[in-house]
């Protein structure tokens, strides 16, 4: 056994827990949940096993995105406290294995989606994976402060894919669900990037608080929350969701706007004093879960 293997854990076969960690399972919950909601609000239900497989494919596609993102950003992750202990920057796994795993998982998810659901859903899944990896991770993230604005489209695909997997076509409601997540992403990520700003600055990632400052970011959070709230309520007046959804979406969005306004009026620059930002970040996750859960409940229970 060569001595180098003692100091290089990546030379060992990767532990399965590290392979699983490559898929960012904690980020996957929201992707799977929104994809499932897209499928459940569709006017026609596929057989349970096909619906399950479609959601599984969305999860595997998200896992492929996570693995390829970690493969490409291993050097950047090593510079940030939040990500330094991931399998690649910590040296527990070699980069090539991560790349092979990500590409393989991506191909597998698209192929299975095409065979189990339909090829339009598979095409959308492929586009979302390529968009996340090539457009967001490789192109936008290291170059522009608008990375999260345009890149947010990648995370907005799951409800659209879920709907298309069930129906075989695109219509107004899943496009609105796409718009909700697309507009929700900037306030969500900018709230986070405000209190981990030093991490992004150290890694040289041009997130908005690093490039334009905290006060501009706080204003942008509030400004983006306005069209997000409008998109969230829109299915109700458009006749695509019932009153229960409309009232819930209005209340949830009003709370979001109040929290975003508190962020806008906060003047702190020390992350320890950024309680409004942390509260908005936590609430934004709850907001999306609640909004989509209410949409499904409104569709199934109220009709």
């Amino acid at each position, binding site marked *: *056994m060569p001595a180098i*293997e*003692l100091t290089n854990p990546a030379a*060992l*076969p*990767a*532990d*399965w827990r590290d*392979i699983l960690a490559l898929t960012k399972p904690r980020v996957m919950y929201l992707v799977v949940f929104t994809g499932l909601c897209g499928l459940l609000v569709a006017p026609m239900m*596929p*057989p349970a*096993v*096909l619906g399950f*497989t479609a959601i*599984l494919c969305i999860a595997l596609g998200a896992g492929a995105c996570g693995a390829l993102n970690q493969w490409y950003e291993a050097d950047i992750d090593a510079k940030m406290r939040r990500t330094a202990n991931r399998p690649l920057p910590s040296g527990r796994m070699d980069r090539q294995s991560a790349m092979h795993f990500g590409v393989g998982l991506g191909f597998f998810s698209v192929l299975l989606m095409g*065979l*189990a659901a339909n090829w339009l859903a598979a095409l959308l899944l492929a586009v979302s994976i390529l968009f996340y990896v090539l457009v967001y991770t490789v192109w936008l993230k290291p170059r522009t402060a608008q990375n999260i604005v345009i890149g947010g489209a990648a995370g907005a695909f799951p409800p659209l894919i879920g709907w298309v997997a069930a129906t075989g076509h695109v219509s107004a409601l899943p496009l609105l669900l796409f718009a909700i997540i697309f507009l929700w992403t900037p306030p969500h990520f900018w709230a986070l990037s405000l209190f981990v700003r030093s991490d992004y600055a150290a890694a040289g990632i041009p997130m908005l608080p690093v490039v334009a400052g905290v006060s501009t970011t706080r204003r942008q959070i509030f400004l983006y929350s306005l069209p997000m709230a409008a998109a969230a309520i829109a299915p109700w007046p458009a006749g695509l969701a019932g009153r229960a959804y409309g009232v819930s979406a209005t209340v949830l969005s009003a709370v979001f706007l109040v929290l975003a306004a508190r962020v806008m009026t906060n003047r702190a620059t020390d992350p320890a004093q950024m309680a409004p930002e942390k509260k908005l970040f936590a609430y934004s996750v709850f907001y999306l879960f609640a909004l989509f859960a209410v949409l499904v409940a409104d569709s199934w229970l109220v009709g």
Partner: protein
Amino acid sequence: MPKIEDEIVRRQRERARIMGWLLGAFVILIFFITIAKTRMNW
């Protein structure tokens, strides 16, 4: 260096076991997908 060899064998065994379970689950999934697709075409 028996410790490293033991660790390699342990990891390979764990991965082989998980891969076996995943492949088994995949075969069952494909079986049920085929049944569902066939029924849809009836």
